[in-house]
């Protein structure tokens, strides 16, 4: 068993109105960042977990996302990185 640090991005699903993202996009436009097309605001969760391998750590965190960390009705998640802490 080794310890792994798994980072997950959780963002509002495409098609679900994200008023926070819109507000941030508007603010970026008003700052002059005219190239901004879309912003979505989500969460970044970092889990330190013991596992046999990086793959096993990723599988476990994926299960955690499906059961608790993300709500599939409104959110998508992706594992951003798996590393040794």
């Amino acid at each position: 068993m080794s310890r792994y640090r798994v980072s997950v991005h959780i963002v509002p699903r495409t098609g679900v109105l994200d008023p926070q993202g819109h507000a941030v996009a508007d603010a970026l436009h008003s700052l002059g960042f005219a190239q901004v097309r879309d912003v979505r605001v989500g969460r970044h969760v970092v889990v330190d977990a013991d596992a046999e391998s990086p793959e096993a750590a990723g599988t476990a965190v994926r299960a955690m996302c499906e059961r608790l960390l993300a709500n599939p009705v409104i959110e998508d998640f992706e594992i951003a990185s798996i590393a040794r802490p």
Partner: protein
Amino acid sequence: MRFGIVTFPGSNSDIDAYQTVVEGIGEDAVMLWHKGHDLAGADVLILPGGFAYGDYLRAGAIARFSPIMREVGAFADRGGRVLAICNGFQIACEAGLLPGALVRNAGLTFLGRSVRVRVENTGTAFTNAYAPGQVLRLPVAHGDGRFVADAAVIDELEGEGRVVMRYVDAAGEVTAEGNPNGSMHNIAGIISAAGNVLGLMPHPERAADALLGAPDGLRMFESLVARVTA
């Protein structure tokens, strides 16, 4: 008839619910701590408003794993009536007792004010004391009250008459103006397929005393008494 009111850490409308039951309609009520496993013989359960677990992660996401939620789920599976108000509605959606989810208000601000809702289905155990199409004044107090679901779920809810309450404007019409939080189809409250779990964002228990204005919420409790004791 006995109402069981679940108190989670962060519930704040549990006492309002208790007083509405005991003083408003003169029925029995018992407070149920979220760590318990005993529903104390309750005939109807209330998941009250508040901010259980500080709304950490998502509103209702942690509360659904409270010990008592296993009994609440089994009670609902047996056909027991569950009234899920505001944070209770969020918890019921997270627990899978109701479809969809409640997310940040479209206007991004917390809303604490009176709204108009129209009763869309008076055939339920929760709404049989209302007149069809009756417009109620009820308070809302939420930051995450925008009901969303995928198109198939919305079609199912609409097709089966399970949208029980809708936000309306001053003329009683379903308009964007009358929608305080951007909920899809102006949905304020829905009921489960089996008709025994009702979730709504407005607070009927805070509109149950004539001293505080129109007691439009009281009829919801009277509806339950009429149906359960029938």
